[in-house]
């Protein structure tokens, strides 16, 4: 079989540009006087904005009919080890790339007031972080992927550790240690696979396409261990129950932008990793692990939701809701049918948008009152009507109200899960119900009722800057909610290809069922024809 390494229609290294442009901006900032705070802020924002605007090219130039990699850049990087510099995106990563550039620009904008000290380092770290995240989604060489995967931890560590809340030091190192722990086992697995690939082909390579071609046929006893090592790295990142304990700490302590990026993009790296690497590389082991992952995901869905119900801190509540939502993403992904996986990818994007929005909302109110405790609020909708409206959109999107993005994602996920196993779906639905409960309750307690605290009586409503970054998010909610077709269209071909790789029986079964149905209809037609003709008689 001929291997497809993908194409680049642009004759321009677009992905590398998108990846390194923020880094270049960060390097320029390194030489700017730290006193010029305004210049630094706006410079960082413009860099992130340009990055986002350029990334829109992808939306128009992306070929939706093929699963091959696109916008590919490929050349030798470390010759002696066979490491390639191989960038490319397909239907699985394209939306995540766009989400990254979009949320990064918002993250920069939302920090203008929140960050009051050492702004220079902050924006440098934020831009460097964007480079790391883009690299993770674009890299198709395992070595390169691993490099970005780890590099990205460093700026995030500093963002939490320097500009975080009271327990920032604990949260930052916990985040770093947890993630490193998982990823080092992945590194060992990558090394072992590197040697296996060599022993099978005589070639040294980390190339993803080649690996899928050769290594996906490994015997189960190898796949089992490799899957486990990758599982550890990705499950910690997702985070799947019981590896989630770093998440609430990191979220609560991180500054708003840190939380937005963490929830919006970093968690997606875990699920993306499963979809990109674990599933196609270890199809047999994947199937073996379905029940395990499903049970852990369901626990995450319900446990996360119950924990969210019990929180007194708004940010912690949103953090636990992330655990719950990501559980659903994981569950749907492992059902291995196109509907579920498409839902799972869309839900990743949705979660990035709506949870990002919720963290922004919490950040906006925190900047005014410097507390996140729910009991400190109440009746806010009277003083901040615009804010309450945005909050409502974000909340409803997170719950999954029809007409907004969350509904489409959750519905597709659940439909896909139901197709595969109705029992899983039944449990997963509880999470959705509980989700509505904690979110609505949160909204009621903070926004409605009478104003109980004196300080809350004169809160300022949304400023222009806040309008600017919240509005695009709401537009996205409505767009995906009303017309999700273009989004599904982008991933269709790639998702189908993944299912073909992991679960080829699915299409076999589907074809059989369709044939049976056709036959049934045909027979029915005959019967009805006969009865109708006899009626005429």
């Amino acid at each position, binding site marked *: 079989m001929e291997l497809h390494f993908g194409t680049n229609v642009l004759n321009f290294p677009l992905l590398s540009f998108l990846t390194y442009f923020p880094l270049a901006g960060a390097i320029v900032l390194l030489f700017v006087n730290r006193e010029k705070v305004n210049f630094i802020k706006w410079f960082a924002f413009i860099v992130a904005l340009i990055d986002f605007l350029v990334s829109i090219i992808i939306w128009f130039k992306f070929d939706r009919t093929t699963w091959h990699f696109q916008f590919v850049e490929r050349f030798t990087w*470390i010759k*002696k080890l066979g490491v390639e510099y191989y960038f490319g995106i397909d239907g699985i990563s394209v939306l995540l790339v766009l989400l990254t550039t979009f949320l990064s620009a918002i993250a920069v904008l939302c920090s203008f007031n929140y960050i009051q000290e050492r702004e220079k380092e902050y924006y440098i770290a934020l831009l460097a972080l964007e480079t790391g995240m883009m690299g993770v989604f674009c890299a198709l060489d395992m070595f390169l992927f691993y*490099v970005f995967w780890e590099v990205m931890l460093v700026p995030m560590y500093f963002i939490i550790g*320097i500009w975080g809340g009271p327990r920032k030091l604990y949260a930052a190192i916990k985040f770093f*240690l947890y993630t*490193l722990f998982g990823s*080092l086992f992945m*590194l*060992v697995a990558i090394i*072992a696979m590197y040697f296996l690939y060599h022993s099978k082909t005589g070639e040294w390579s980390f190339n993803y396409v080649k690996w899928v071609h050769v290594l996906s046929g490994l015997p189960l006893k190898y796949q089992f261990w490799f899957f486990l090592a990758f599982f550890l790295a990705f499950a910690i990142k997702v985070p799947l129950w019981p590896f989630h304990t770093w998440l609430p700490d990191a979220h609560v302590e991180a500054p708003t932008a840190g939380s937005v990026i963490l929830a919006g993009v970093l968690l997606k790296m875990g699920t993306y990793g499963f979809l990109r690497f674990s599933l196609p590389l270890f199809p047999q082991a994947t199937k073996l692990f379905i029940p395990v992952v499903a049970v852990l995901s369901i626990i995450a869905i319900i446990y996360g939701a119950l924990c969210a119900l019990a929180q007194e801190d708004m940010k912690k509540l949103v953090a636990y809701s992330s655990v719950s939502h990501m559980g659903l993403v994981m569950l749907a992904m492992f059902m291995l049918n196109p509907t579920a996986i498409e839902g799972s990818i869309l839900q990743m994007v949705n979660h990035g948008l709506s949870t990002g929005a919720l963290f922004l909302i919490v950040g906006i109110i925190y900047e005014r009152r410097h507390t996140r405790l729910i009991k400190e609020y109440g009746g806010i909708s009277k003083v901040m009507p615009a804010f309450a409206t945005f909050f409502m959109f974000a909340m409803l999107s997170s719950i999954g109200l029809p007409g907004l993005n969350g509904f489409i994602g959750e519905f597709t996920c659940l439909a896909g899960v139901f197709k595969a196993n109705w029992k899983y779906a039944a449990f997963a639905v509880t999470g959705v119900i509980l989700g509505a409960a904690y979110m609505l309750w949160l909204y009621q307690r903070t926004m409605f009722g009478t104003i109980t605290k004196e300080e809350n009586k004169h809160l300022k409503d949304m400023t222009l800057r806040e309008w600017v970054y919240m509005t695009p998010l709401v537009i996205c909610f409505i767009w995906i909610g009303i017309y999700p077709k273009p989004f599904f269209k982008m991933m269709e071909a790639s998702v189908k290809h993944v299912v073909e790789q992991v679960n080829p029986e699915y299409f076999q079964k589907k074809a059989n069922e369709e044939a049976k149905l056709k036959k049934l209809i045909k027979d029915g037609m005959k019967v009805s024809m006969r009865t109708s003709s006899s009626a005429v008689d």
Partner: protein
Amino acid sequence: MSAINVPVPNLSAIVPEILTTVLACFLLMFDLFVPKDRKRVVGIVALIGCIFVGAVTAKYINEHIVTFSGMFILDPFSVVLKLLFLLCDVVVILISLRYLEIENVSLGEYYALLIFATVGMMIMASANDLIMVYLGLETMALSVYVLAGFTRMTPKAAEAALKYFLMGVFISGIFLYGIALTYGVVGSTGLPDVSQYITLNGFKNPVLGVAVILIAAGLGLEIAMAPFHFWAPDVYEGAPTSVTAFISVAPKVAAIAALFRIYIEAFNLMAAYWQSILWLVAALTMTIGNVTAVLQNNVKRMLAYSSIAHAGYMLMGILAYNKLGLAALAFYFFAYCLMNIGAFGIVIYLRRQNIVGDNLEDFKGLAQVHPMLALVMVVFLLSLTGIPPTVGFVGKFLLFSAAVEAGFYWLVAIAVLNSVISLYYYFKIAKVMYMENPEVDVPLSAGMGLKVAVFTLGLLTFVLGIYPHPLISLAQRSISSFF
């Protein structure tokens, strides 16, 4: 009466050693003519001398000469090591120039001793005979003992030197015992002879087994591998920081290289035997090093324990006993030299009047006082932890690869867990630098040499992490004479 037939040695093989010795002797004499307050000149001369010797040594990279009746070997591996030692010298001299003045021990002998130690290490790198290893080891060790106590007026330095000396002498006795046992069985101390003996007679004599352990123990002191690591933290803390930087890298590398050559060349057929011992030693060394480092608040002590841990990682390269393992080892030597001396360089950078600069508190708020310095320190810390894009990551990647190829999965798992632990204490420094506010405002005053050294090392650590190709080529070239 027949004359004793002395074979004429091929002197061209020892040109680097000769030149280095001449340099050291020259420095001693030159020192007499330099006034007391200008001893820095001696250092600069030493620096130029090292670069010159390095240029000459580099020409031998493709040679393969065995001479002195087979006792001395000049092969690419030894040449690469010699270059590494000279590189260490250059960097250490650069970071010492001003530091010695601050410590009030700016003496010309310092540089001469450094070069003498280098001669010893060069001999170790080229030794093809157990006695030769011993000669090199002692030449090096005697110079280093003196260096460790160079700030002799401070009790800590005196303690360090004495401790190092006593341990060293004791262990070198053990090493000699190992050599004697080998000689007793084989009738020769030449590495090829031992190998030949085992090939012919098999590995039946248990005395040989004891000898293998005793030899490892003898070199294990310099490597600071468990259970011979106890001296390291005290000595590293007490010795002047520039000397600590030197002894945490160069002698360790020399000893590991010697151990490697002995095991591969002489006891190759006993691989399964020494692997089973070394496995345990490597696991212990890295675990003890990392776990103990967590508890340290003195950066020099912390780096001492971390260097014990790194010795454990490097032992994996010997253990793997394959081509990749050796290449990884050669690569890691360089990586380790860059990042470890770099980290110590920053400790020296913080040395001001009345502030030693080795306490964790001294790093407080460094990111605000001197952002570039803090950034470079982060690069070193990342590299020591093994996080990309740094040279330390590539080194660790290669070492892990070698161990995986050889099938040491459990050892790799232990090493991985150790790397996670190491992140915790390395980033304690990063935490203090970035997340706390500066307390004292005594300005940093680094000399030109130190600045150049630290920032060059930082840059190399980073660049070779992104583009490791040249270093990998060098490492590959160095192993061409093995396997």
